[in-house]
């Protein structure tokens, strides 16, 4: 189904990369580099202002060409242009120690985790009730995990072993049915195999099935490629910024697989210097859960040129017609239409009662796509989650 063109890293050697604030909701940052600084691969770019132990590192060697902040000193975007010339940049690569947690934090691999509730990287000292590892293709056209894992089982195993030290609970490995795994002897790892479908592809759906969020506790999710990178780091001490993704253009029959650095410039990857056609846009992530973007999202494994469905924000709110297809849009036991109504008016109490703490923006993206009202439920959910986080956990 997917064309077998494993392009090598040179394919995107001259593309810039970016770290995007929308991948790290709620994280206020302190920059460790300034604009125009030369940085090495794996060098710390900035850290979490509230928790200095959480570092964010550069996917490649280059020059910081843009650094801008969002509201309340959150990150808007940090762009690095590749730059091979000049003197070697100052490298402050972390020293290897024994503690997996400290090494992942210092090596900039911590932001690979997404903590639920609320999303974003988990607290540096938090211990989740469970960790859910997704090794299922996030959409029918995403890279096949079995192929990506080929030849990298040792690193994956090292990564999984590392994960077991971070939690007192189980580490759940979610696989497509029929996937053969090598190694992984630890008793703390429980594997789950299901036929990949709508209710088994996204991290949120997998968590809802294998380990629903216990009250007052956290569950972390992480993708299998990030586990490989963590294992690689724990084994060698070097930062592996490359991920396998699929790219798709409308005129291609089948998507192509490429290995690209995290946060790669999609303009460079997909348009290749052509003029942007009106009515089309670059999309990072799957058709159902992705977003319009110029750079690859931190947790996305697909990029495409897609029809631009972004609706212009009208002056008047349009009504919500409770279509039957909305009921099947969420893979959670959350009633869709009552949740949409509560989200659209920002009613945090009702949203909490309906189970919105299980959800993140990507989970409600299908509701936005289907709904007749044109409401951006992802944005509404973020507002509600922020409100709940500030006021403390709701009673539900």
């Amino acid at each position, binding site marked *: 189904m997917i064309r077998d063109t494993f392009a090598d890293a040179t394919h995107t050697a001259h593309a810039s990369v970016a770290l995007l604030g929308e991948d790290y909701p709620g994280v206020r940052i302190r920059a460790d580099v300034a604009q125009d600084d030369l940085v090495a691969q794996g060098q710390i770019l900035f850290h979490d202002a509230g928790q200095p132990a959480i570092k964010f590192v550069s996917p490649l060697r280059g020059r910081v060409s843009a650094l801008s902040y969002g509201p309340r000193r959150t990150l808007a975007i940090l762009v690095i242009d590749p730059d091979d010339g000049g003197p070697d940049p100052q490298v402050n690569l972390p020293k290897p120690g024994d503690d997996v947690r400290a090494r992942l934090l210092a090596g900039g691999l911590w932001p690979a985790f997404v903590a639920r509730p609320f999303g974003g990287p988990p607290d540096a000292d938090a211990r989740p009730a469970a960790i859910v590892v997704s090794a299922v293709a996030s959409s029918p056209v995403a890279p096949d995990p079995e192929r990506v894992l080929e030849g990298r089982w040792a690193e994956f195993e090292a990564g999984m072993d590392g994960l077991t030290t971070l939690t007192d609970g189980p580490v759940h490995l979610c696989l497509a049915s029929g996937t053969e795994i090598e190694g992984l002897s630890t008793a703390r790892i429980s594997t789950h195999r299901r036929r990949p479908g709508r209710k088994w592809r996204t991290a949120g759906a997998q968590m809802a099935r294998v380990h*629903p*969020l*216990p*009250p007052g506790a956290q569950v972390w999710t992480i993708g299998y490629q990030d586990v490989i990178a963590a294992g690689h780091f724990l084994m060698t001490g070097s930062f592996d910024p490359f991920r396998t993704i699929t790219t798709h253009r409308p005129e291609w029959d089948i998507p192509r697989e490429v290995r690209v650095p995290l946060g790669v410039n999609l303009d460079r990857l997909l348009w290749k210097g052509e003029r942007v056609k009106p009515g089309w846009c670059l999309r990072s992530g799957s058709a159902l859960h992705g977003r319009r973007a110029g750079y690859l999202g931190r947790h996305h494994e697909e990029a495409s040129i897609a029809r631009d*469905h972004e*609706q212009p924000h009208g002056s*008047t709110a*349009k*009504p*919500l*017609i*409770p*279509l*039957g*297809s*909305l*009921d099947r849009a969420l893979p959670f*036991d959350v*009633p869709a*239409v*009552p949740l949409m109504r509560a989200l659209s008016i920002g009613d945090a109490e009702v949203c909490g*009662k*309906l*189970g919105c703490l299980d959800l993140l923006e990507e989970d409600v993206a299908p509701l936005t*796509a*289907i*709904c*007749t*009202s*044109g409401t951006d439920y992802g944005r509404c959910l973020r507002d509600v989650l922020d409100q709940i986080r500030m006021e403390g956990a709701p009673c*539900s």
Partner: protein
Amino acid sequence: MFLTRALHGRGTGRVVAIQTLALLPPVAVTIWQTGEPAIGVLVVALIVVLVWDYVFAALRGHPFTPEGITTAAIVTVFVSPDIPLWHLIVVLSLGSVVGERVFGGRGYGFLSPATAALALALLSLPGLVFPAQSPAVALACLPGAVLLLVTGLLSPFIVLGFLAAVMLAFGVATTPEATALFVAGAAALVFLVGEPTAAAVTPSGRIVHGVLAGGLTWIFGGSSPSPPTTEALVFAALMASILAPLIDHLVVSGNAWQRQRRRG
């Protein structure tokens, strides 16, 4: 495949268009059977509801959407063609304004304006009787029902709940009985009970909504085994849509309670 996504990300205009398409066959059959009086009812009804749609759109500065088309079409299918015109104008105005426009239009309220207008007509004019539905009209509702089911505007849960309840309540055992029930109830089920903006919105709530509407039809029809009258169906649809928010509230509360219990 195209039809299942026909409404995704579109506004109410497309919803009204699909519902109008579904209503075309029954309206055409009604006109074919009754002739000019039915055309008169349809034209007057269209003028009344569209005037109200336009007035409210202009007052609120909203774009005009001819949402009233469906209200007028549904009323044409149900009322007797010799209804006094002033009466038609009054109940349609009340139904459209009180049932829909005061809430802000289609999708904002909790009532179907057509159901409200029909119920008002029955309440305000003692002795008014709606004609029994003809088999041809009932059959003409089927293509529309399929279209509404596929596009997600008619919930299969409501349909199944309603059918199960009426079959039990009316004690259907033979084919003629089932046919009589189908002829009497098809149009009311598809266009009154099933109206998505006036029904429950959770899957299990929709089953309860359908069962409730079916049970009320039997009670309002005098608990007799003869096929339900149109009046009983209209009042059952109205009561069910008034109770729909309560049904949803109970379902959501039960869901939250279950989640809490399951996760300790």
